[in-house]
């Protein structure tokens, strides 16, 4: 599962991560826009309260289920065909590095129809193309309902770009996430 969020989306993203059970059956990759000038301790703060492991993604690190990976500031985050991460310092996209589009597309290239892309509140169009790409590769494209987003530019442009995205309000997003765990339990 890949999550992209920016202005106005942080607190919902926190709550989603806090809701994940320790044995959450997917790996979670989170791309947020934040300034490189400030050292952020977001991951450490979250880790204290979440049941899943939360960390910054390292280059060459193997992606694993039940772990939440944040893209480090000032690098794009890519996924290799062998399931390891690569950090990439190429040009920013929409003035953003990490950019949501870059990671959404890269994860989709590798995981194809086994990807859930979730795009939350934000003030630019980053993420829209990436989410459409996930959708075209057979993955599930989920967008926060613009009317429940604090800043609706990002979800609205994704809805404009994707063919048939799943548009969910906040409580339905939590429902979806808990269904993922439940479904996995049933399959086992």
């Amino acid at each position, binding site marked *: 599962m890949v999550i992209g969020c920016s202005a106005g989306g942080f607190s919902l993203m926190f709550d989603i991560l806090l809701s994940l059970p320790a044995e959450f059956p997917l790996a979670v990759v989170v791309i947020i826009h934040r300034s490189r000038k400030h050292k952020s301790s977001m991951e450490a703060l979250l880790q204290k309260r979440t049941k899943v492991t939360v960390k910054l993604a390292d280059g*060459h690190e193997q992606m694993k289920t039940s772990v939440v990976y944040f893209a*480090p500031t000032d690098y794009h985050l890519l*996924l290799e*065909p062998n399931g390891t991460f690569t*950090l*990439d310092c190429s*040009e920013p996209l929409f003035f953003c590095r990490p950019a949501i589009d870059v990671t959404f*597309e890269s994860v989709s*290239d590798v995981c194809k129809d086994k990807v859930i892309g979730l795009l939350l509140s934000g003030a630019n169009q980053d993420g829209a*193309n990436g989410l459409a790409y996930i959708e075209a590769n057979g993955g599930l494209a989920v967008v926060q309902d613009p009317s429940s987003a604090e800043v609706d530019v990002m979800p609205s442009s994704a809805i404009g770009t994707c063919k048939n995205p799943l548009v969910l309000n906040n409580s339905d997003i939590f429902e979806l996430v808990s269904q993922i765990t439940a479904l996995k339990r049933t399959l086992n």
Partner: protein
Amino acid sequence: MSDFVHTISFDDLVEITKLIRNVYGFDFVGYSQASLKRRVTRIMQLNNLSLFEIRSRLTNDSAFFDQFLTEVTVNVTEMFRDPGFFKVLRNEVFPYLASFQRIKVWNAGCSSGEELYSFAILLEEQGLYSRSFLYGTDINTRVLSKAKKGIYELSRMKQYSENFIATGSAHSLSDFYTAKYEAATISNKLKKNILFSVHNLVSDGVFNEFQMISCRNVLIYFDVELQERVIQLFYDSLCMLGFLCLGSKETLRSNEMAKRFRVVSKTENIYQKIA
């Protein structure tokens, strides 16, 4: 990249990599597949080329390959990128470098030269430049010719000046370049002891002995095996007690190598060869 027409699979990428190796002798085998795929897709989009077309252009058109080589690797760079790194360099590495009679610096994967000129400025500032010599190398001839000119967009200097201030310098960056129209030209006195030339980290070997080697944001694109080979090359090219500087996301991972270096700065990934 919502354009789904100009795209390739990882299998196609392997084919292209083989083709390039056979025709031009450049080996991209140990490079990040995810990054290469992104770059090749971008080249196809910009030039409106199908997979078939890009393969035939690569086979038959060496001028196109030149352009391809420029685009397929990531050349993004800045002056004084990661100011914290340059601060540690000034405060903890340069006092040590000062004890060497001659200071030879190798900036591997120097791109268009911004990083190398940053070193030159720092050495000049510390009164060490006159006994230093700096080598900048890259695989990409286009970025190297930009590096030799040492002319950068004036609009970028604002960010670079902020970086420079953040390194804790008492100087102003404008002491080291002249501004004319939209261009900032690095002072000639800083270009005296500098040489830019082609060197491929994958296929070329040791060419000198250095007191300091800096290779930043190059190894992030290499797989573990290639990374280790290149680190060995750096080890072999360093004098005893010489310094190795890596990028902010690059560390000495192998235990074998870690034993031969002392960690000077854990956060900035600066090492000193001790065995």
